[in-house]
């Protein structure tokens, strides 16, 4: 309905992903990771979220390109 939801979704996950990733880097040696079985869960989750967010934004951009191309061919 006029708004491509992939954009807000891509944005929020990219933003939160970067935040968690950097936070994970900054707190790498913090004892709090004992809870998560000594895995830097913030780093991994942040990375995954960022990848997912960028993936969504890419899909959205590709979709727009396809639409523009289709519009062009109907106009010709």
């Amino acid at each position: 309905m006029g708004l491509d939801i992939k954009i807000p979704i891509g944005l929020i996950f990219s933003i939160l992903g970067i935040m968690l990733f950097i936070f994970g880097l900054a707190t790498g040696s913090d004892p709090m990771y004992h809870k998560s079985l000594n895995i830097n869960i913030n780093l991994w989750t942040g990375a995954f979220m960022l990848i997912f967010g960028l993936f969504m934004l890419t899909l959205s951009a590709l979709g727009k390109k396809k639409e523009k191309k289709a519009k062009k061919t109907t106009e010709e």
Partner: protein
Amino acid sequence: MEHSFSLGWIDYSIIIIYFAFVLGIGWALKKFMKSSKAFLEAGRSLPAWVTGLAFISANLGALEVIGMAASGAKYGATTVHFYWLGAIPAMIFLAIFMMPFYYGSKARSVPEYLKLRFDEKTRGFNAFSFALMTVFSSGISMYALALLAQTILPFQFELNMLGWHMTPFDVYLIISALVVLIYTYLGGLSSAIYNEVLQFFLIVIGFTPLVILALIHIGGWEGLKTQLDVVATSNGFQPGAWTHTWKFMGHASTNPMGVEWFGLIMGLGFVLSFGYWGTNFLVVQRAMAAGNMTAARKTPLIGAIPKMFIPFLVILPGMIAIALTMDPGSGFSLPLKGDSYNYDTVIPMMLKTYYPIGVLGLGITALFASFMSGMAGNVTAFNTVWTYDIYQSYIYSKGSDEHYLKVGQWTTVVGILLSILTAYVARVFNNVMDFLQLIFAFINAPLFATFLLGMFWKRTTGHAAFYGLLSGTGVAAIHHGLTQPAGATSLVKGGWLGTVLHTYPSEMAQNFWTAIFAFSLALILTIIITLLTEQKKTEQELKGLVYSLTPRITNKDIPFVRRPEFMAIAVGAIAIILTIIFW
């Protein structure tokens, strides 16, 4: 507060960013809300993947996340029946056989389908009972959200505003109500749907790390099985009772759910499941918002795919939690409640155990997101039914479309206010919640009989549908009044008609059999009354509403692998394979 979480600035930032996006999506949609169709039906223009995920998400409220985790601890793997048996078959049936009538007819809602197919009184009964149900569901979600927030967030304060003495509970409730109000007022159904899609991804991404960590901690599936064998035997069951889904369903006494296979399949797998997924406008509305018939039919199927795997996300934590509790060396123990465990604390406790700050904020945000989308979903469904089926039908039918758009917008406000009211009612009268959910179960039980006969037998008449529905609901109530589950201590559980004719081995068994009796009576009665009354609708009027009078959809222009039928077969096959693996 012993249970409250210690949170860092990063956690609060995540929550705030989420709220900002949710409001932003509503704001971005504002300019498209130019007609009642745009506001209440999302313009019937959404892509199938969006409606498919929203379909599942509207149903995956936080009550389900918390409830299924609790059930995972209490009933083990058998909880999965609510998914592979109690959802997938019905979703397939809805997609292939029922959507053509919902989407192809001119109906803008489920009650409106009933009006077109049957008559005004059938529509009215469904519209009023549904409207009541959604307002209460929204209120209950709101109450549960405020309660959870109050428990896990570490803020302690008391405010005095305009003479009202506010505690954290009140503040959290008002804030969440306000946020939902703003984004549903601005963007209508589209806003609710888009936020449901966002919520879906948040839940998956927010909870997957938890499941992975907990599973590693307990020693993988094999380690979990070993621990759960101990849980099973210490509860008087065979080892494996907590990890098998069908093996011990032969008799009610051999599985922790306390149900035998027939009651399970007919009660849950058929009546309750088809009655909910096939007729509940909360979910059907999402499919009806799709851009075309094929997208509408694919919606439940697209939703079915994640639905099949959600058990690994919500039920598994519960199973792991009880396994850890029974292991004295694990350091983890579920708190007690009476003479058993407080199963509702599984999710908060698991989050606290495995998540450091950072992902903790993510997990909390995912939970809050699902509460809020439960609220928004119910409010938008209420909105459409109120505006079209109650206001336009019974109060004022001659308005312009702008008039109904305004009515829709104002109903959003009223709907939220009513939800706030019911949230406080639920807080004061805890038993009222149980009582109301019981009433709504009575109403749902016979519904599928009405729709089944309506969609597949052109002869079914309006009188038959209405009285069949009414008596089915009555039978559900009577059955409940005459039976009790074993060990029942209050009349809310049954037996309130004086004598107890039968004692069921468990509450689940009683629920499933109530549904079976109600459905059967509604079916038989509707058939009998149909044969005794006249069909008031002409075949022309029923075209597109009944199977025999609607041209079959062939989809010849789409390759077979992209047709809904193929998708349905694939979904069914995966569900069967999963069932076999975890039998």
